[in-house]
């Protein structure tokens, strides 16, 4: 009994954040009560059952686990490579402030030998251009198309999951995957960094020194910024996913778009378009290692990701709610 009340409280509290779902649930509950059905008023908590189920389903797929394993392996490889390279005592060159620089390798790689914490930044910088968005593209592309291809989509919809609710749930679970994937890279890098290298005070890009605790906090912020950078491709992948009944096709298309955009972003003649590519401000997360933090590009990145989420989220919604389900 107390659980139901608790659920209702949650519903009231969350109305603003999810008005559509709440009102739809209320309609459903009145109808059920009116029809003399179960007689119980479903709370918002009940509709979150689908989100929980979605997470369980996503993270129990061996494909998801394989993607996470690949992501976790990147920092291990980078860590071991740096350790071997510098095993003879020579430094990788480049002193403090060399982070974020040029084409010699991923940002911050030169500082790993001095401080294992920098492996977190290096690993995120190494996985953000391709591994992370590819993993997100696979999960997002499969989200609707995979269910459609397997036929499970029709049973979710006649359950009835509700098309808007299902799409929101899918998007929420893909974003959760973005966060988990980023944290897996960060956690693996932190563990490898702590094992292979000394930890201690952190030298920022600006040259100032901050304590290890503060450095850890910056690392967490960077992980969040990286996860947020993936929102755009997640929305794009989900939209592609509503267009087809083949999970593989949707995944391939999304990853193909990712590669195309990455290439176009390198072509100087397309300079005018670059600020609209979802990957353009990705490496802005390095600005969190400045003292004081330089927010301009970070904010531009977040704004761009929000724009992608709005545009492709709406497109996905328009497509998914009007589409005939024939599989």
């Amino acid at each position, binding site marked *: 009994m107390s*659980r139901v009340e608790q659920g209702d409280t949650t519903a009231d509290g969350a109305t603003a954040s999810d008005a559509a779902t709440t009102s*739809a*649930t209320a*309609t*459903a*509950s009145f*109808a*059920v009560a009116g*029809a003399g*059905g*179960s007689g*119980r008023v*479903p709370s918002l*908590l*009940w*509709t979150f*059952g*689908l989100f*929980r*189920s979605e997470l*369980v*389903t996503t993270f*129990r*797929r*061996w494909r998801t686990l394989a993607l996470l394993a690949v992501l976790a392996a990147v920092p291990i490889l980078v860590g071991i490579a740096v350790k071997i390279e510098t095993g003879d005592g020579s430094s990788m060159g480049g002193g403090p402030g060399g982070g974020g620089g040029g084409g010699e390798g991923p940002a911050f790689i030169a500082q790993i030998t001095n401080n294992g914490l920098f492996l977190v930044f290096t690993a995120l910088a190494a996985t953000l251009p391709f591994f992370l968005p590819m993993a997100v593209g696979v999960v997002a592309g499969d989200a609707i198309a995979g269910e459609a291809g*397997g*036929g*499970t989509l*029709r*049973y*979710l*919809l*006649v*359950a*009835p*999951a*509700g098309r808007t*609710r*299902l799409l929101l749930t899918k998007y929420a679970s893909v974003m959760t995957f973005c966060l988990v994937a980023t944290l897996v890279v960060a956690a693996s890098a932190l563990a490898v960094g702590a094992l292979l290298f000394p930890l201690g005070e952190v030298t920022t890009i600006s040259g100032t020194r901050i304590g290890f605790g503060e450095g850890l906090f910056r690392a967490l912020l960077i992980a969040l910024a990286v996860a947020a950078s993936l929102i755009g491709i997640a929305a794009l992948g989900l939209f592609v996913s509503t267009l087809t009944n083949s999970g593989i096709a949707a995944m391939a298309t999304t990853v193909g778009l990712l590669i195309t955009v990455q290439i176009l972003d390198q072509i100087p003649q397309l300079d005018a378009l670059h600020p609209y590519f979802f990957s353009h401000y990705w490496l802005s997360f390095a600005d969190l290692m400045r003292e004081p933090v330089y927010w301009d590009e970070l904010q531009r990145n977040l704004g761009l990701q929000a724009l992608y989420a709005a545009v492709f989220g709406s497109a996905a919604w328009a497509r998914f709610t*009007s589409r*005939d*389900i*024939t599989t």
Partner: protein
Amino acid sequence: MQEQSAAAAVISTRALTKRYRGGQLAVDGLDLTVPAGSVFGFLGPNGSGKTTTIRMLMGLIEPTSGTAEVLGRPMPRAARTVLPEVGALIEGPALYGFLSGRDNLLRYDAADPTADPRTRRARVETALDRVGLTAAIGKKAKAYSLGMKQRLGLAAALLRPRRLLVLDEPTNGLDPQGMREIRALVRALASDGTTVFLSSHLLDEIEQVCTHAAVMAQGRLITQGPVAELAAGARGRLVVTTPDPADAARVLKEQGVGDVVVTEDRVTGEPPDRDLAELNAALVTAGVRVRGFGVERASLEDAFVALTGEGFDVAG
């Protein structure tokens, strides 16, 4: 009177039409009425529009024109309130192979926002027990046989008490024992007051279980009504058993019997509109030795063939 029948109808469509984007007319002006409490057989060869109709009723496909009401409310607009009271098995089961039977059902139940999560596990176990899957509850669905998958799909339709069950080919892939169990289950559900809408290509199945039936062909509804009336509509066939089938066939043709078919020692045909005793006399006079002579009651299959002009065994 009409209003009353509309209120008692669990499914009611008016001029329901679906034209796919390619221009193909899948369902053409369907007026279907499924009375409450009936076990309704939905018949038709493959490609006749049965599945498209079921998908429109379940809100998966938007009709091109016409209306559909399920449980007295318009579909697909009222899907949210209607579908929790409807259990469905559409075009075979669809499962997550990497999840166990139990976890598959937990997921489908979680998709229903009006299903109580506190009773979820108990309801899932009851549903699995009802279809005889308790032993395989923790087994991954990809290791299930076709029949077990079919049962799991049925269990998903039975997660909650339903007012309407829509079962598309529910005995597909089951062995004869499994078919009997499912038929018994359908009868038990119907006796509890659940309306069952059953599509099947097995006519004897429809004949054994259904109280009402409708026949579709090429997107159109050919007939609908109580099964007994449909079968009565078709004429029986004259059957003569004889060791002289060739002679018998010749005599019967001379006597005006149409569509004479000889199979080993059986000669069958459409009986003419006169006293059959005279036919028998004619056979005997012609020296045909008759072992058996009579009219076989028309089956639903005969009715179906008479209505659609084609055989039914396009199983698929």
